[in-house]
């Protein structure tokens, strides 16, 4: 809804001007004035000391509320790769179950490819119903057939909420589904909950490189769609004898114009997947050279973990891109994240801030990484890490 300045309250203090990410506020005749650049991001609302900037409610929308009531239930997209359920799917079942229980509705899952056995597993992880299609078309990920079939399922069964993983697969084809169905989609959510009064889904996501968080609504369209950042939500509960129903979906005449010719795995000398690891030892420009990663590897192996990196280290060519953590790399959420020689730029922090424990080693006490670290050591990593390695070996020797 439009943002306006209450001229009676505005004192012309100009606080709001600097806060606007879009340069949309000017001073006219001593009062703030919002121009056409306004993106309705609402950052200014909380800045004004007089509370003079307001959002006015208006009847701008053509409500489709009449049909909203026809939509019921929560649907998750159960991602698979090489016939195995992807880890993010269990997290979706966790959050999906919670939302479905809050709304008192069913939780269903759409599974394309993989096997009936995997479909049954989804039930034990919390789903009541599985829409399962094992047409060979779905063996490999391909945007158009995936988007077509999921749209078809949504049109037929009309869930009020649809969620998928914010993985390369989910982020690529889910937007097509939203465009096709004419509904809203919120990318990369870090928290989802229900507004009990309206049954609306409250979708929280980072914006401006994680500098601020926004709550997004999709009030007048159904389904409400969101992708969820991997490793942020908790997995559901596994119940061995939970029962559910599998509905077999046929995929006839699904067109596609792109063809996956080959799938190439990039082998790294560290095989553990970043998003699976319990411990990540990450290195930045502070390592000074590629050899520094050898030291980090020693520490990582000792802790049963893997290696991450900042973009600066990747750009230097010290380590391959698959190790990059952050906005343009992976989002990780290990039990322990050890940042070595990483300054803590927002683009890096957004990718690791939800780790359980963050340890920072940096020789600059002013480095922003210390603002988010649970444990900070100010010092040269080439002194600290060998000491730390020695210490861990000692501890391990005692306890074994």
């Amino acid at each position, binding site marked *: 809804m439009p943002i306006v300045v209450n001229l009676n309250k505005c004192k012309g203090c100009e606080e709001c001007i600097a806060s606007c990410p879009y340069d949309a506020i000017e001073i006219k005749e001593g009062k703030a004035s919002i121009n056409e650049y306004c993106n309705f991001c*609402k*950052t200014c609302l909380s800045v004004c000391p007089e509370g003079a900037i307001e959002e006015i409610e208006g009847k701008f929308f053509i409500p489709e509320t009449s049909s909203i009531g026809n939509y019921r239930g929560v649907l998750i997209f159960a991602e698979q790769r090489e016939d195995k359920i992807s880890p993010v799917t269990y997290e979706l079942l966790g959050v999906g179950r919670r939302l479905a229980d809050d709304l008192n509705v069913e939780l269903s899952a759409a599974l394309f490819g993989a096997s009936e056995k995997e479909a049954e597993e989804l039930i034990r992880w919390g789903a009541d119903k599985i829409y399962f299609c094992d047409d060979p078309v779905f063996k*490999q990920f391909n945007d158009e057939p995936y988007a077509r079939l999921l749209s078809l399922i949504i049109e037929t069964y009309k869930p009020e909420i649809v969620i998928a993983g914010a993985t390369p697969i989910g982020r690529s084809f889910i937007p097509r589904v939203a465009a096709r169905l004419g509904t*809203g989609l919120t990318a990369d959510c870090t928290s989802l909950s229900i507004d009990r009064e309206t049954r609306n889904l409250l979708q929280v996501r980072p914006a*401006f*490189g994680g500098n601020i968080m926004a709550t997004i609504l999709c009030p007048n369209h159904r389904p409400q769609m969101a992708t969820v950042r991997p490793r942020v939500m908790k997995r559901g509960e596994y119940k061995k004898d939970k029962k559910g129903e599998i509905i077999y979906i046929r995929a006839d005449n699904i067109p596609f114009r792109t063809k996956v010719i080959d799938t190439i795995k990039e082998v790294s000398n560290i095989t553990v997947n970043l998003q699976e690891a319990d411990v990540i030892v990450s290195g930045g420009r502070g390592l000074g050279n590629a050899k520094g990663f050898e030291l980090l590897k020693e520490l990582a192996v000792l802790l049963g973990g893997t290696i991450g990196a900042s973009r600066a280290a990747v750009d230097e060519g010290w380590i391959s891109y698959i190790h990059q953590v952050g*906005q343009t790399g992976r989002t990780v959420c290990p039990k322990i994240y050890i940042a070595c020689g990483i300054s803590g730029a927002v683009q890096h922090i957004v990718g690791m801030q939800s780790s359980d424990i963050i340890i920072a080693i940096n020789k600059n006490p002013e480095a922003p990484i210390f603002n988010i670290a649970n444990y900070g050591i100010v010092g040269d990593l080439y002194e600290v890490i060998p000491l730390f390695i020695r210490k861990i070996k000692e501890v391990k020797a005692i306890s074994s």
Partner: protein
Amino acid sequence: MKIIVCIKQVPDTTEVKINPETGILLREGVPSIINPYDLHAIEAGLQIRERVQGNVTVITMGPPQAETALRDALAMGADDAILLTDKAFAGSDTWATSYVLSMAIKKLGADLIICGKQAIDGDTAQVGPETAEFLDIPHISYVRKIEEVTENSVRVQRMMDEGYDIVESSLPVLLTVLRELNEPRLPSLKAKIAAKKAVIKKWASSDINVDNNKIGIKGSPTRVKNIFTPEARADRIILNGTLEEQVDKLAKELRELKCL
């Protein structure tokens, strides 16, 4: 070959600072730039034009000031630039933005459309695939290498979680590109001066036949309910003492937390 590159003007978020007391975004003096991914999209368009004959048109939907982004793209070597600007577009979410872009692309006609993977202000990565769906054409996301372009097909490498896929598509197709795809060229001084004088076409909603109920804040399914700053971690401990003592303490804490 008709190539269209979609670009967005964004605040340079790497320069955005937070006021530590109020937790509010400080934008003063932060420059507006072409979304960094989109520079790679422009470069990709220019390189393809050099390989197979054709022309590159750059489009953006935004406020009048977004014209500067288009001039920068012209200076890099784009043939043509169009600014989609109208008060009625303001407040568009990704759905409405994609609808507007698709209507402009329909009017222009294109064999290949190139977008950045995502825009750094919103990070949604949705506009590319949504635009493709509106156009009813295929798309390939996260392109890290363009292996081959012919008159009626492309073959590219698409980045995935554990490596990459080689994907082929017929034309027309929409690609969204990663930064490792190429190194964007820097414009020459001469090109910059020429671009300053270039005439930039401006299209309003009536020029592209859009349904006014589907654009701007009115046509956007999503709404921003509120904005807040993420909480800082409450449980911070900066260790002190000699390095040896600090490391000892750390190992002890980790042991207590059963991490060692």
